[in-house]
């Protein structure tokens, strides 16, 4: 990870004072199970936040609440100045501004790579087909797989599929990107190609929230690391301080377990 860290330092990664996401006292239940408890979080434009924590701690649920894939029951979430309510128009607006990458890629298997990338721009943004295809090719080049454009997802490796998924999100020109364990379903040798793509994105100033267990990635590009446990934000800090000097007992235990081997 040394070389990626160096790469990361060279890029311009400025954080503005503009608020991208504002979460106040957000609570969520699955049935009677209290998954998220009093979440307060402010994300500024250009921030790269890594969220980690043991499984079942609510980290995926938290970022899925931001684009309303999960409904929250109390508190408020404001994305790009739009209040997330049950109003479908607001939800659609937020979803088209926020890109999301899933653990299992979720590409559309019945469409080619190019069609996967142009579908949403054509139907949601009403972009002309030609223009949408040009944009798609631009982003496919960026994730370094333009030559696979006419193949189907099933013909690509896991790492390639995940890079397509990133390109597909980027084609909507989102202002915020959410990553839900993007490398957890990948073979070890494919993790790097996906992380490199994400690092490049971070260097361009994309606002990113990333649930991941890749601590190297967190050290290289994150400006803030959040540790969650039992539905609460337990600790957040700059990566250096977070990894070298964790304060909370649970954070210490977690870090010793994942960095110990």
């Amino acid at each position, binding site marked *: 990870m040394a070389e990626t860290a160096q790469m990361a330092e060279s890029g311009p990664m400025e954080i503005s004072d503009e608020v991208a996401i504002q979460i106040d006292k957000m609570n969520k239940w699955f049935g009677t199970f209290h998954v998220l408890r009093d979440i307060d979080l402010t994300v500024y434009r250009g921030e790269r936040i890594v969220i980690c924590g043991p499984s079942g701690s609510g980290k995926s649920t938290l970022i899925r609440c931001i*684009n309303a894939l999960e409904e929250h029951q109390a508190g408020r979430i404001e994305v790009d100045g739009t209040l997330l309510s049950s109003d479908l128009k607001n939800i659609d*607006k937020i979803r088209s501004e926020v890109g999301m990458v899933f653990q299992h890629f979720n590409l559309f298997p019945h469409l080619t790579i190019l069609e996967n990338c142009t579908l949403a721009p054509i139907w949601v943004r009403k972009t002309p087909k030609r223009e949408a295809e040009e944009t798609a090719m631009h982003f496919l080049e960026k994730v370094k797989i333009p030559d696979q454009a006419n193949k189907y997802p099933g013909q690509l490796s896991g790492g390639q599929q995940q890079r397509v998924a990133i390109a597909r999100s980027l084609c909507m020109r989102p202002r915020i990107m959410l990553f839900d364990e993007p490398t957890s379903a990948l073979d070890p040798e494919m993790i790097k190609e996906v992380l490199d793509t994400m690092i490049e994105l971070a260097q361009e100033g994309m606002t990113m929230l990333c649930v991941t267990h890749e601590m190297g990635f967190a050290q290289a590009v994150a400006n803030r690391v959040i540790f969650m446990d039992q539905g609460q934000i337990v600790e957040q800090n700059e990566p250096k301080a977070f990894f070298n000097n964790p304060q909370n007992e649970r954070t210490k235990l977690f870090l010793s377990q994942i960095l110990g081997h």
Partner: protein
Amino acid sequence: MSDTHAQSVAFVRETAIPAAPPPSRERGPIKWMRDNLFSTWLNALLTLAAIYLVYQLAVFALPWILNGLWTTSSLSECRDILQGETGACFAVLTERWNQLLFGFKYPSAFYWRPGLAFILLFIAAAPVLFFDLPRKMLLFTGLYPFLAYWLIWGGPLLAPLTALIGVVAGYLVYARFVKDNFAKGLAAGVVAAVVVWIAGGYLTELLAPNRPILPAVQSRDMGGFMLNLILGTVCVSLSLPIGICLALGRQSNMPIIRIICVVFIEFIRGVPLITLLFVANVVLAYFLPPGTNFDLIIRVIIMITAFASAYIAEVIRGGLAALPKGQYEAGDSLGLDYPQAMRLIILPQALKISIPGIVNVAVGLFKDTTLVSVISMFDLVGMIRGPVLASTEWNGVYWELFSFAALLFFVVCYGISQYSQWLERRLATDHR
């Protein structure tokens, strides 16, 4: 490897060995037979038994078919000519050919009309079945139902024209209002279509010409295989979209829609089709305002369509359930709204999974159209059981007639099955 015998190991090839064919027992039909027919003594025994069975069948059936008579005018004449030898009396097919195809009351001067409609059916269905064909052909597909109705039933041209204009007007109004709200657009479209139909209905009656271009044929005069084809084509093409709506409705978050769909599906699936047909024939008339003469064929079409769409809905629900949740989430996260996500992502995949089930229902439905013979409609089976077998000339010609009916249905159903297999191969993109 220290004790390698250098003199025996060192080797340089100077001439290449030419490729030779495999030994005769390892190629061609002999190998095929050894592999497939006589691989073990049990398989050999079964092969011999099967050959004997096929031989017995051929000995029984072949003289019957080859000795068949095609040109007599009655069964007794057949018997006279055959003089006790085995031989089929296919003459019933040649003599009653038109009746078997068109029914016994359809005016023979107009046989060309359903014939033409049948040929045009292939042109209309082609762009739907084979989506590599130019999309402009769909225009003809859209016009076809009205054209076919006019050809088969005849009567004033204004009637199908009104129906067509009503659909077009409804669509235009829907397209105008749907931008605000889907429900509003749908309601406005339906209202517009109904208004056009009512106005057009009065106009048609007022302006009805004394001698229309194509003289009218009544529904009760329809019969033969034509009736099976009409019912089969109309009901399959209506029940698929209705089935999709029911399947989506059953998954809806809106309780009223979900309950309506569940009740409809469960009720229809719990009732035998024959009961529904009797309802269509007799009971439905009690619920209609007195004086309305609701065409029997339309009543039957409604019942068969309701029946098939309930089954198709359940088949498609299986396809929807087989899709991973991630597909819905990916569509949502890209900002697609519900109709877009369904049309572009969910349904193409769910329908592909459901193809075998849908085809199963469609083939079953097509064969079930023969059930209308019990409510005294003279479809192919109704014609055979009724007018043909009851006639003095052909009383007793069972094998020939029912084999013919079986053959006709087999050709259509096998065609549907082959098409669906082609479609599945064509749509395979998962490369598993």
